[in-house]
């Protein structure tokens, strides 16, 4: 295990904690929104503890608030969570180990933990980044939810630009992924497919459609193709 003395670990810890705190503020707004549509404080906290996927939780609460059926709340939320299956597949290469440990890790497979982990170069740091990011966000997400649900009203995250903090964090995590021509192509196709489909596909689906970008990985790489 990499230790705290390792010079690469300190910046990793700092960025994971910053991200977790920004997300914690978002969780406050989830807590507020959920209670506002009639969920109890206990139900709101249970959603964050069990679902632990912000987009799915917000969508379920929004559908219930709009008077949608349980079935439509379910399908919308699970569609948003479906990308975690794909992220789980990506992480399975990096998170080997005993079954109970992997069953625990599964709950922490989210956008941020996958992105932060795959942004690292070495397997040891990749595992560390996954557990620290996933763990810190789990704590702050649930703490924020509880505070929001109890407070009932809270700061406006938009006023502090926190709605942009999350895509900005993803920009930082995307950068190290773009070292190969293929990765840049996959990213460009994914982003384009997502933008084109946002107006007419159900919310959450465009991000899944972006996975078609990975098909550029099918052809056998030429011997001279590589990092550039």
């Amino acid at each position, binding site marked *: 295990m990499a230790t705290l003395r390792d010079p690469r670990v300190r910046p990793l810890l700092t960025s994971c904690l910053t991200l977790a705190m920004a997300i914690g503020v978002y969780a406050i707004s989830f807590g507020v929104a959920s209670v506002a549509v009639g969920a109890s404080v206990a139900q709101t906290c249970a959603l964050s503890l069990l679902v632990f996927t912000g987009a799915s939780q917000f969508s379920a609460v929004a559908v219930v608030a709009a008077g949608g059926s349980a079935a439509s709340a379910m399908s919308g939320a699970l569609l948003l969570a479906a990308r975690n299956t794909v992220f789980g597949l990506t992480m*399975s290469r990096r998170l080997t180990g005993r079954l109970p440990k992997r*069953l625990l890790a599964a709950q922490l497979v989210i956008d941020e933990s996958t992105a932060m982990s795959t942004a690292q170069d070495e397997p040891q740091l990749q595992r560390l980044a996954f557990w620290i990011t996933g763990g810190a966000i789990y704590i702050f997400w649930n703490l924020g939810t509880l505070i929001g649900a109890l407070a009932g009203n809270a700061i406006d995250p938009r006023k502090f630009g926190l709605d942009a903090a999350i895509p*900005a964090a993803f920009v930082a995590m995307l950068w190290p992924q773009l070292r190969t021509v293929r990765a840049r192509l996959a990213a*460009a196709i*994914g982003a384009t497919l997502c*933008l084109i489909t946002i107006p007419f596909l159900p919310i959450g689906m465009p991000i899944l459609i972006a996975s078609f970008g990975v098909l550029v990985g099918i052809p056998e790489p030429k011997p001279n193709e590589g990092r550039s």
Partner: protein
Amino acid sequence: MTWELVLALGAGSYLLKMLGLVVIGDRPIPAALDRCLALIPAALIAAIIVSNTLSIGHHLQIDARLAGVSAAVVAASRRAPVLVVIVLGAAVTAVVRAIAG
């Protein structure tokens, strides 16, 4: 909101995560599929960025977020630490939003 829905959502989203990490993840897979899997973060993170920056629900919308995220791109391309990229993205968005009203 009913407890049945809360529990069903919890079970459903956990199963989706576990399906990828534990159930499918163990099996040996062809090389081409392996190359594709390695590209997932690039394709999906890029999509998450554009969707969080340029849309609200089903609407494409250009607003203060684009300024903040563009600043984040510049910072990331100059290899700024993640912390700087995040804070800069939020700060530029907040300032542009405050000025533009």
